[in-house]
Structures are given as C-alpha cells and as structure tokens.
C-alpha cells in the first residue's frame, strides 16, 4: 500500500457501470421528486389541486416529496459521486461488484417502497424518517452492504493517504447509520404500524437530532466530499488550503451533531438543551464558511472560465448558496429570530435555498461533467446547460424571496397586537389568505427550477441513447 502519485495503475479497471446506474437514477428521481414538489406547492396555492383523493393530499404527498428529493435524488447523486471519485482517489476498483449492485438495486427498492407506501398513508410521521418499520429494516440492510463495500474499498486501496473527500464520505457512512438506527427504534403493532420507544419531548429531541443531521450528514458532508473532489477536477485548480480542509472537516462533524435542539426552541424541552442547540448552531458558521471559502478560493485563476462554462457557473452558485444558507441557518437558531421564523414559510425558504441552491446546483454541475466522460460523447444539446443554469437561478430567487415575504408576513401577523393589547388578526385564516400571492409566486419559481431539471433529463437521456459521435477522450488521469 505504497503511496503512488500520478495516474491509475495499469492493472486497475474502475467500475464505471455502477456510476452510470446511479447517475441515471439521480436524473430520473430528480424529475419525480421535484414534480411532486411543484404539485404540493400548487396544492397550497390552490386547494382543489389536492384532487379530493386520499392519496394525493398535501399531508400524504409532502413526505413523498421530501423523501424523494433527499434520499432518491440526493442519495443517488451522493452514491454517483462516491463510486466515481473513491475508485480514482484510492486507485482501486470498488471492493466487490456484487455489493455495488446490491446497494444500487436495494436503494432503488427502498425508494419504490417509499413511493408506494407514503401516498397510502403508511407513515411513522417523523420528518424525513416517515417510512414504516419494514422499510427501515431494508434501509439498514442496504446501508450495511454499502458500508462493507465502502470500507472494503478503503482496505484494498493502492494509495496510502485518504484524501479529504474520503473523510467526508466516511462521516456520511458512519453517521447516517447511527442516526437511522437510533431514531427508528420502535415496537411494531402490525406489519405497517409501529410506535417509537421514545415519548413526547424525548422523541422530539431524538427526531431532531436525526432530522437536523440528515441535513448535516446526508445533504452536507457527502456533498462537501464531492466539492473537494469535483471542484478541483473541473476547475483544474488545486484545493486552496489543506490546513483549512482539516479544520473544516473535524469542526464540522463535531459541531453539527449538537445543533438539533434549535428545532425545538421555546418548546418545553429543558432550557439547557435548547441553549446547547442554539450555541452550537451559531458556532457552525465557522467551519461552514471555512469550507465555503476553501471551495471558492480553489477557483482562483479560473474565474475567467466562469463566464463561459456553465458547469463552473453551477459550481460557483452552489458554493455561494452553501455559504448563504449556512449563514441563515445559524441566524434562525438564535432564540429571538426563531421566535419570529419558527413555524413559518421562512423555514421552508431556508431549506430550499440550501437544497435547490447547494445540493441541486452542485448535482447539475457533476451530472453535466460526468455524462460526456462516462459515455464518451459530447452532450446532445451543449447549449442547454446554460439555459438550465438561468432557469434554476431565477427559480431559486423567486422561491426564496416569496417564502421570506410569506414567512415574515405570517410571523409578524401572528404576533401583532392592536392598541387595546388584543390580537390584531385573531382569525388565523385571514392571515392564510394574505399569503396566496406568495404561494403562487413560489409555484412559479418551482416550475422554473423544475423546467431546468426536465431539460437536463432530456439532454442526458438523448446523449446516452444517441450515437457516440466523438472519439473517446484520453482516459481521465488521476485526481
């Protein structure tokens, strides 16, 4: 296991078929998950869009949307990035091809089970952990398969030192296992119903420890790992600071796990726990921005290409949104701010600036960069990514601005008093009524973003299905 610089050893053949599988799954689930997102946004703006059917109400489709975009779209791009980059970073094929395929098909099975059960109302109700207990068991098995393959690949690596991307991937594999198992502990009553072993506020704290770290370790650390691999590869610039990446990694994973109680501020959760959650959330700004700056400064010397290269445009906006939402999040964790923002659309806007801006944009960059490499052909529609970029950017702006406005409106009106010291808007539904224009604007923003995703899907599938028009490019060198 000697450190070997340069390109891959001649005898190693990377498994890129599995990368292609995960990438195509990413694109398919992106379309599905975001279509459901636009639909449920419409249901809020225009209630008859619930269709009068049990299976299509907001209450049942909202978990379908969140699960589809986080675990189907987000999960599949993480696995795409991990399977592509870790083979190259460790200069070895994935440890076991059968486990790779079990992982792929097992994960897609989980997603299909989710898509079938959630509209039927089969749910445990914990946000982002709604899936019923038999599916939870399946997730655990698939994760074990992935974990064995992941650590097996590390064990047979041809490079001694683990690159920073691998650290972040490792924290993803370990932490998601811990979070999923602890939060899902429940006693089954029937095959489709169970009750968690925790009660009340303890259950709430366990759930938000899980829920916030689903953001931290599903939507952040694997994506940061991908940033550390793909950003330098795509921009052809070395990572700005190795020291910063060390601090970024350890501070981020240590601090993130404490932040959960900021979801329960002003609840009857013991005050010390709320204060810990708030304090650690604020401290999280430091590693988050350290990582963001490490990403942005890596682009030093490549800024001229941002003007012309849509992939770099996506990357710059992705890292910028990472910075913005990791600033906004800690601000919203401050009690005084949270007293206004909690329960409002502001939270929804915040989440979407992170997911659409950071997770979505970096995914699009990686997709447009990987497809020509993996299939040895140029994109069918080389100009579409730029259009996609602008649709996505304008869509996010409309989305977040409308949700800020809606959140501030309802938050302020809920707490507004008249001169006599009574509630100025005692009738809740009067406040709901004022949000309608913002809800419509949100649908428009979501629709623009979704249109971009459809363009990407068409582009990818026409590229893949079309003929290999270009001669095979030179084999990708080492990192």
């Amino acid at each position, binding site marked *: 296991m000697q450190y070997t610089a340069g390109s891959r050893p001649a005898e190693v053949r990377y498994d890129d078929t599995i990368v292609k599988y995960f990438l195509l799954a990413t694109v398919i689930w992106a379309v599905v998950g975001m279509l459901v997102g636009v639909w449920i946004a419409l249901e809020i703006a225009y209630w008859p869009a619930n269709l009068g059917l049990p299976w299509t109400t907001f209450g049942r489709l909202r978990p379908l949307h969140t699960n589809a975009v986080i675990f189907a779209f987000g999960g599949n791009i993480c696995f795409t990035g991990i399977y592509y980059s870790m083979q190259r970073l460790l200069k070895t094929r994935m440890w076991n091809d059968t486990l790779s395929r079990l992982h792929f098909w097992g994960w897609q099975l989980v997603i299909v089970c989710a898509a079938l059960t959630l509209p039927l109302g089969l749910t445990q*109700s914990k946000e982002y952990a709604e899936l019923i207990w038999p599916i939870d068991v399946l997730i655990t098995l698939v994760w074990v398969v992935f974990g064995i393959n992941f650590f097996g690949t590390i064990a047979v690596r041809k490079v001694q030192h683990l690159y920073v991307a691998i650290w972040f991937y490792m924290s993803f594999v370990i932490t998601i296992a811990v979070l999923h198992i602890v939060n899902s502990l429940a006693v089954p009553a029937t095959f489709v119903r169970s*009750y968690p*072993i925790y009660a*009340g506020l303890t259950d709430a704290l366990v759930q938000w420890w899980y829920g916030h770290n689903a953001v931290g370790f599903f939507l952040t650390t694997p994506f940061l790992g991908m940033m550390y691999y793909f950003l330098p590869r795509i921009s052809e610039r070395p990572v700005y600071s190795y020291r910063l990446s060390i601090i970024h990694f350890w501070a981020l994973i240590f601090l*993130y796990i404490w932040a959960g109680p900021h979801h329960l501020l002003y609840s009857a959760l013991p005050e010390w726990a709320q204060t810990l*959650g708030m304090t650690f959330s604020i401290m999280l700004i430091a590693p988050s921005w350290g990582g963001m700056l490490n990403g942005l400064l890596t682009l030093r010397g490549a800024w001229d290409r941002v003007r012309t290269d849509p992939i770099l445009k996506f990357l710059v906006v992705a890292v910028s949104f990472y910075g913005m939402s990791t600033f906004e999040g800690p601000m919203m964790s401050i009690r005084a701010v949270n007293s206004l923002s909690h329960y409002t659309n502001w939270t929804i806007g915040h989440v979407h600036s992170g997911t659409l801006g950071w997770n979505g944009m970096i995914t699009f960059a990686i997709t447009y960069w990987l497809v020509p490499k993996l299939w040895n052909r140029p994109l069918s529609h080389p100009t579409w990514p730029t259009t996609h970029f602008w649709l996505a950017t304008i869509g996010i702006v409309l989305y977040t601005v409308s949700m800020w406005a809606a959140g501030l409106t309802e938050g302020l009106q809920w707490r507004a008093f008249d001169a006599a010291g009574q509630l100025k808007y005692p009738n809740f539904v009067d406040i709901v009524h004022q949000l309608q224009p913002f809800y419509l604007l949100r649908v428009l923003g979501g629709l623009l973003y979704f249109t971009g995703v459809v363009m990407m899907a068409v582009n990818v599938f026409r590229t893949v299905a079309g003929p290999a028009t270009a001669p095979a490019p030179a084999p990708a060198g080492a990192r």
Partner: protein
Amino acid sequence: MSDTTEHGYVAAHRTLEGKSAIFAVLTTVAILIGGIVEIVPLFSARTGPELLPGVHPYSALEVAGRDIYIREGCYTCHSQMIRPMRAEVLRYGEWSRAGEYVFDHPFLLGSRRMGPDLQRVGGKYPDAWHYEHLRDPRSTSPGSVMPPYTWLLRQSYDPADIQASLRALKRVGVPYTDSVIAGARADMRTQAQGIVDRLKQAGIDATADREVVALIAYLQRLGKDGRAAIAAGETTRTGAGGRTQ
C-alpha cells in the same frame, strides 16, 4: 494542495490519513459526543422533562384517531406546541408543558403552521363543528386552504387492530393495564356512541365505526388533561425550556 513543510497538527493529520481504521474510530467518536450529551440526560428524572400530574393515556378510540391523524399527515400543517409568548397564549391557550406529551408515541409537535396550532383544540368546538370542518373545511372556516377529508366520513376504522396497538404502546411504556386492553373494543364502542349521539343532536347522521368519529375523539382530547392540570395548580418547575414574554 500539500504545504511545503508540514509540522504540528498538519503532520500528525497526514499520518492519521494513512490509518483508515483509526480515522474511522475518531470520526465515530466525534459524531457521538453531541448526541450523547444532549439526549442521555432526558432519560433521567432529574434532568429530563418534568412530569405533570393528571395527564392520562389516550383511550382506545383516541389512539385509533391519532393513528388517522398520523396517516393523513395532519402534522405537516398543524403544530401541537404552544410557545410561551403572549400572542400564542392569547390565540391558542396555555403554553405547552413537557408533561403533557409523556404518552405521545410518536410526538406530534409539528414544524409548520399552515393551519393553526391544535394543542388545545380539545373542547374548543362541538363535535359537529369538527365533522363539518373535515367534510368541507370552508363551511366552517371560509378561506381555508385545507383539503376536504370526505373519505373519513365513509371509511371504517378496524377495531380488530386496536388491541395490537395498545399492546405495542404498553411495551414502549404507556401504562395500559391488561383489563384496559381486553376491554378496548367495548370501550371504543361506548365512546364512539357518545360522539354519534352528540352529532345526532346537531342533525348529523353518523355511524360509530367511521374514521371521522375516531379522529374527532382524538381532537377533542387534545390539550384537555394539560389544561386541567395547569388550572389545578401545577407544582413542577415552571418555565422549563422557555420564558414568558
């Protein structure tokens, strides 16, 4: 990316990067600490949420109704947690105490108020109001964005399920006695008939086995024990987790 001269923690880290097992162990330790510090004390009576005397487990029918509340995702739009702020107390009633939730498996605090908080909705409206509101939300709340839940008026809950549910809840710590579990179906019928009778007085013809009856039973229970306990003079520490504004 490597610095030309490495020393101190950078050199140490470079060595660590070559030892993947130790790296994985340290990562695991780093991600466990926060959760352990925050969660474990909640299982201790001294440092965990306070208890509120007078809060009782849900009845069999209320458990069935709660399962429907969960199935329909009511918690995606309605919270069950009133914050200790004047505007919230005026709008919804007494702010939420930890002890009110001790039989909630799972918790249903919610995270979004598309509609109003429901923690103290129990007893706020007559049964018939809930029936009409679930059938056609705009008949009772003009301008509401809530979809109608007409199938709750047609579908029946499965009384055969309830004993399995109560047994599972008992195993996670809810103090249902064996006689309560054995009599669950009869108890359900009695409570459901009471709701059906009240609906009849309001001119609504409903059958006792319909899902809407179970859901109404749950909604009418919400916050009642807590309100009574608070009115009777709460003795536990006040203001845990929040301060009045």
